[in-house]
């Protein structure tokens, strides 16, 4: 049968679809000209397939190639790096499609297609993207099946069906390989950040910044607890501590005389004394173990409840009881934390740290200072001053609102004594200021508070609108104590979240006409949202966070002891088991009672003759086989006919009983025949 070396017509549509689908993720986010280039290529291909025009010649193709390279350089400023590289790859992929004529070109294109698919996963690893890539792979496999189909009248759906079956058969194998094949840590850290500004925290806090965040329902991070979940009022996810106040905004600061090395402990090298102090408190009171899966922020800070202990590399502990990633979080990242709230009292307060925590600019908040000094004189202890301040917030007519009036002149005094309408950052800022003025070391903490629970996965979802700011004061013997002045004004905010707090207040006024989109709705939409989140979460915890470390623990649970030999043997045994099961299924589905020796006899000769270079279809009868041999090797004609005559009597004449003697005779004839074939 003559082989068709051109791409058969029944595969052309699949080829177009496969190319388009593979390139689509890049086309959607890449520069506009790339979409144009692809549209042009697909249009030309369509016209060529309908024989309305000839394939563009070498000159046009070269021009297109140079144009694509130049435009890539123009759009990205370079030709390497993940974004530019992938864009260039996809353009070349399209241009390769333009010149596909023969089967060999199609092979190159399809292999390239698999690679292009893989690059889509560099930029997004969501379950949807995974499904999409799977679809692309089915299409590519359909093309592979199509270009290898010799029947020109084959139907296209047949290829798709076959590809689907092949992919489905590959899934169990994929799972085995996923679990067992050793993972190597990435050799390089590819920074695939889509540089766009995301909603999220910044490293300073000025009035109005957090209330902006509360308009976004974007996911900040998820938390999966291993054991008990803390009550809602305890769910304070610390992100940053802000210690320097310039009269308007709070900023991060490191105490004078401390360097970053002493302030951050990455787990390597000798532990500083403050780390030892915290570690000593690791078994104090209740602890919570949980996993945090944080969305990309492009920042280094991570979120956790106090006092966080981590065991994995890549995350450092800071002296202000925070977690800091060693590299900016440019992709979804997960880390395992054990939080021990009581360990905070072990932490000493150094003199230079204390100085920083008491500093306030000279000119701001003159009235507030007076108030603070007054409390100081009236109270016996620091704790009493704190209570005094909270009572002040509770008793004076303060309002919790998303749209506070603009503060003029001195923000602290103006808020405390005139407007008295504010969001959490106003309360945290002025409270911390008051504490510092009263001589109590204090700082502002920003992060998230609360989080809604997904009833399917029982994990917490913390969204941008859960962003919050509060204070911490240092009390002798208790260490850093969290004080949330917002809780004094609007307790519902802490207990039940932002929405409840705003609904509780004079609704329309508190919202200030702001559309709070994306609050988990009720009914079908809410259920769907919950499911989508659950799938995404499971995808993250089960698939994406399966790294070498997790693999090691899974394997040691499975195998007891992880040695290369054991892993290799397990891998081979499970693959063999799988293939065996599949074989068993095939056997069970069409019960082929095993071949009789007579039938084997025929196929031995059939195979031998084919091996000698004579093409035979499976549908030849014994005597047709003999005639074919006689035609090719005239010397062998008469033994071949003898064999056929004898064989067909043995197999088709019921009066001949298949005996051992017959078999021997046939084998003898066949061996004689073999000598005459070569």
């Amino acid at each position, binding site marked *: 049968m003559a082989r068709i070396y051109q791409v058969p017509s029944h595969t052309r549509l699949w080829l177009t679809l496969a190319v388009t689908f593979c390139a689509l993720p890049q086309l959607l986010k890449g520069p506009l000209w790339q979409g144009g280039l692809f549209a042009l290529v697909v249009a030309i291909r369509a016209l060529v397939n309908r024989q309305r025009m000839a394939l563009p010649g070498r000159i046009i193709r070269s021009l297109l190639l140079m144009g694509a390279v130049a435009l890539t350089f123009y759009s990205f400023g370079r030709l390497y790096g993940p974004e530019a590289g992938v864009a260039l790859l996809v353009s070349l992929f399209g241009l390769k499609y333009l010149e596909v004529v023969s089967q060999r070109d199609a092979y190159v294109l399809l292999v390239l297609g698999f690679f292009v698919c893989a690059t889509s996963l560099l930029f997004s690893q969501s379950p949807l993207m995974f499904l999409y890539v799977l679809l692309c792979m089915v299409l590519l496999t359909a093309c592979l099946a199509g270009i290898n189909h010799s029947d020109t009248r084959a*139907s296209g759906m*047949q290829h798709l069906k076959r590809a689907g079956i092949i992919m489905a058969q590959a899934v169990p194998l994929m799972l085995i390989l996923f679990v067992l094949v050793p993972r190597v840590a990435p050799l390089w850290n590819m920074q695939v950040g889509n540089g766009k500004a995301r909603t999220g925290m910044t490293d300073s806090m000025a009035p109005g910044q957090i209330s902006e965040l509360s308009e976004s329902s974007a996911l900040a991070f998820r938390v999966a607890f291993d054991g008990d979940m803390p009550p809602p009022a305890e769910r304070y996810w610390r992100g940053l501590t802000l210690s320097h106040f310039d009269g308007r905004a709070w900023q991060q600061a490191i105490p004078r005389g401390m360097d970053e090395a002493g302030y951050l402990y990455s787990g390597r090298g000798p532990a500083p004394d403050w780390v030892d102090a915290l570690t000593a408190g690791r078994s104090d009171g209740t602890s919570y173990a949980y996993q945090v899966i944080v969305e990309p922020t492009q920042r280094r800070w991570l979120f956790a409840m106090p006092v966080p202990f981590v065991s994995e590399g890549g995350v450092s502990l800071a002296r202000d009881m925070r977690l800091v990633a060693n590299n900016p979080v440019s992709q979804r990242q997960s880390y395992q934390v054990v939080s021990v709230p009581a360990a905070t009292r072990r932490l000493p307060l150094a003199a230079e740290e204390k100085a920083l925590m008491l500093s306030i600019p000279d000119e701001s908040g003159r009235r507030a200072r007076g108030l603070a000094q007054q409390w100081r004189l009236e109270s016996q202890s620091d704790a009493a001053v704190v209570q005094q301040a909270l009572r002040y917030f509770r008793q004076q007519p303060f309002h919790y609102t998303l749209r506070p009036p603009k503060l003029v002149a001195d923000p602290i005094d103006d808020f405390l004594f005139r407007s008295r309408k504010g969001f959490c950052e106003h309360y945290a800022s002025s409270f911390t200021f008051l504490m510092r003025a009263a001589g109590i070391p204090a700082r502002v903490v920003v992060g998230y508070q609360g989080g809604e629970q997904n009833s399917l996965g029982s994990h917490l979802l913390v969204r941008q609108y859960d962003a919050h700011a509060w204070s911490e004061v240092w009390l002798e013997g208790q260490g850093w104590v969290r004080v949330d002045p917002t809780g004094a004004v609007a307790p519902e905010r802490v207990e039940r979240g932002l929405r409840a707090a705003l609904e509780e207040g004079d609704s329309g006024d508190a919202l200030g006409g702001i559309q709070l989109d994306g609050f988990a709705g009720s009914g079908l939409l809410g259920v769907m949202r919950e499911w989508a989140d659950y799938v995404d979460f499971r995808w993250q915890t089960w698939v994406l966070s399966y790294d070498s470390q997790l693999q090691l623990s899974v394997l040691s649970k499975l195998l007891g002891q992880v040695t290369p030999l054991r892993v290799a043997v397990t891998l081979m045994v499970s693959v063999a088991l799988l293939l065996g099961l599949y074989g068993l299924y095939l056997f069970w589905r069409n019960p082929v009672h095993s071949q009789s020796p007579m039938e084997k006899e025929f196929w031995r000769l059939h195979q031998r003759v084919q091996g000698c270079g004579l093409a035979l279809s499976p*549908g030849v009868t014994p005597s047709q086989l003999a005639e074919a041999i006689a035609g090719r090797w005239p010397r062998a004609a008469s033994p071949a006919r003898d064999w056929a005559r004898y064989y067909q009597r043995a197999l*088709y004449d*019921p*009066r001949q009983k298949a005996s051992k003697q017959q078999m021997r005779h046939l084998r003898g004839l066949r061996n004689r025949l073999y000598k005459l074939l070569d």
Partner: protein
Amino acid sequence: MQALDKALAQVGRVVLGKEEQLKLALTCMLANGHLLIEDLPGMGKTTLAHALARVFQLDYRRVQFTSDMLPADILGVSVFDPNTQQFSLREGPVFTQLLLADEINRATPKTQSALLEAMEERQVTLDGVTRPLPAPFFVVATQNPVDQAGTFVLPESQLDRFLMRISLGYPAPDVELELLAGGDLRQQVRELKAVINGEGLMKLAQVVGKIRVTRELLDYVQRLLDATRSDDRFVAGLSPRAGLGLLRAARAWALITGRDYVLPEDVQAVWASVAEHRLSARQGGSVAAISQSLLQSVPVVRR
């Protein structure tokens, strides 16, 4: 078996150069099946049918089908006889041993189905009285494949009643020369010598049922049937009835070839004429090409 060879030789004298088709037609008769000949006019269909009737000493009638024909025109009709004061049946042309139904697709479906029912049941029921048809009973129907205007195409269920379909086709050039040089065909047919009679033919048909098959051969037939069913280029696969017909035809072929057991070659020889008219291909595929490709791809010996 010499009788069969002689019969073939006799018919071969008037239908020239068509040994293969003659053998198939004979196979069809031995297998007790009806034959459909699809051909253009003037290809020798009538001559073939007539010659077969002569050689086997069968009653022969020919009916030209037209669109205004009624079932009664074929089956017969009850008429009142004033002398006996009773109804008596006037038998239609179907009461014969070999019926040539010319251009069967010109008749209305009603008339077609009357004939086809008679073919299947080998009896006719008129006015509540069932009368058996003579034995043996063969129908040779013809169909013009090209001129389809004003015809009623036989549906697949009806085509299934015919064991085989053959077409004669144009004669080879040298054969045609011989034909042109020869004398009056009608006269020649009349001069043909009878070889066996109807009873002898029926005895032979009984022998066909005793031709031996092995398990391996039945396996092959089943694989072929299965292949038509799993091949999605066909609208539907062959029915079990078609399978039984295939086996019967293969047995008859083996008998004509002079063997008392069936070889795969016998199945392959009758395959096209038994299978192809019962199959239809999807979207413009050629039934003949696909069914031949199945013969190529279905292993004769079990793998």
